[in-house]
């Protein structure tokens, strides 16, 4: 069967997956079309109501990339505090890491 990828312990068939996704999209489209008909794009209807305040400008409302995953990096602060300083940008350090890695691999391969 075309599209059937055997992985040794199971299989993956993207064509079946696509058929299921297509069916889900059709159902979603039907639900969408069953919605209210009096919605009008580009009118007052689509403007957010902010307790009577003016809508902020586009540049003020966009969440910038630097604001995302703050919690993740904050939670792993100890890890990042050690990892990021290792990336010094200094060429001598890069060579030192190469030598360290080379020696470790050499010792492991020779001894084990």
């Amino acid at each position, binding site marked *: 069967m*075309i*599209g*059937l*990828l*055997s*992985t*040794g*312990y*199971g299989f*993956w068939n*993207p*064509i079946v*997956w*696509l058929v299921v*996704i297509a069916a889900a999209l059709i159902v979603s489209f039907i639900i969408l079309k069953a919605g209210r008909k009096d919605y009008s794009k580009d009118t007052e209807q689509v403007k957010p109501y902010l307790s009577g305040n003016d809508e902020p*400008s*586009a*540049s003020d*409302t*966009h*969440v*910038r*990339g*630097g604001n*995302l*995953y703050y919690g*993740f*990096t904050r939670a*792993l602060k100890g*890890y*990042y505090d050690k*990892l*990021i300083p290792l*990336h010094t*940008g200094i*060429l001598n*350090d*890069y*060579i030192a*890491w*190469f030598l*360290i*890695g*080379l020696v470790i*691999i*050499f010792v*492991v*391969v*020779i001894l*084990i």
Partner: protein
Amino acid sequence: MSVILDNLPALLIAVPLFGAFLTPLFGRFLPKVRTPWAIFAVLASAAVAITTAIRVLISGPIVYVFGAGASAPAVLDSAGIPIRIIFTIDAFGAFMLLSAAIVSVAVMLYLAASQKRRSGKSAFYTLYLLLTAGIFGMVSTGDLFNFFVFLEINSLAAAALVSYHRKGGIAVEGAIKYAVVNTIGGLMVLAGIGLLYSQYDTLNMALIASQIAPNPVTITALVLFLAALAMKAGSVPFHFATPDAYSVAPSGVTALMIVASQAGLYGIFRILFTVYNGVFNTVTVGWVVIILGVLSMVIGVTMALPQKDVKRLLAYHAVSQTGYMLLGVGVALCVLHDAAALSAYGTTAMEGGLFHIFNHAMYKGLLFLAVGAVIYRTGVWSINKMGGLGHNMKWTMIFFLIGALAIAGIPPFNGFASKLMIYESTFAFNPVLAIIAMVVSILTLASFMKVFHSLFLGPKQPEYAEVKEAPKPMIAGMIILTVFVVVLGIFPDLFVNAVISPAADALLNSGTYLSAVLGGGL
């Protein structure tokens, strides 16, 4: 026609080199012809590579002896020193040729537009063609010293290309770091070659493979090859120069540098499986490869998450994805001498790792081209300063999203198929490794959703109101890679059966390679 077909391996190098050497002449005397000539040269080189690959996949390995007739022996005893320059292209080399050819064409079309207003195009296209020749040579040669020469061509051309077009010296700094680190790696490879030559009086890979035995000298050479080529591939802890170079290089160049670094992976796998032929402690070395892979996956993705420079972020993801390839092939190496385990999951792990090499070249190339198109139009690298570009660059946004979903291993794109093979086979070997791989995929998805949101979503930003869609040649380059990302995702079995399985088989059964060169053994 038969002359061309009979000499395809020589043309693999001759065509891009001929194109490279004529490009400055066109630039000097017929500047309008320079870019079309460079495109033609890359198309011709890719056509030779693809034809060679198809011939190998249909008819078996090609052994080509430079300067010798068809009936001449591949290994000639010349006063006791068997030296001949030969190309040996088996299914693994053919697989790498396909990847390099496709990406080189897509990137060249892209560069035709992205470099249009730039200076120094003659040298730029010359270096691009030299980089292509370096990659083709690395994955085709059957001679260790040739391999070193093409490795150097690859590294130096790439370093020179990195130095283009970023003001303030930052590109030159990235290029110097890349050049120094790769030159040291190249010297380590040369030292390893010297050690093997001192033992076996030959540079022919097959001839060395037929005689090699584990001793302190050959094992030292093995470690030198492994560390130096892992650095070329951008594996942790040898990865430091990779993000520095990738983040400042022209985006099209970075896409081809992905394939250039994968030629380093080719070198590792060719040396471990073919030249050394499994005569070392495969479990120990396999675990070394696995640990390099796990470190690359975890450190690569966690370093990507806090990045603000979009290209640096992509570069760390390139490091992370290299880990998957090392993990898959490392598992296969660990069980190389355990026939039951190799049959149960080792071969699938190998196929998954190799499939991921090809997939990564396609989707990461696509991501660099899409991000390069954004930078081309906005002149901004920081994700903190972008937003709402999906309103103006709809096609670029779609291509980026496809690439992002593919790298995160979301079905039905190609990244999912190869990652699934790696997950399942690795789980059978060691469940912890599979869990780490899956967690890294989740973090990859998180990271790319951040980038997608930061670049393309949100309201239209006033400062980007005039931004237009990328030029058509750049879109064409992205379309080529997108087609492979989607088609290989929907029909992974066709590609695995036709290309990946033969490539994995070529590595796991090195006897085919050896007998092709040695004619059944010395």
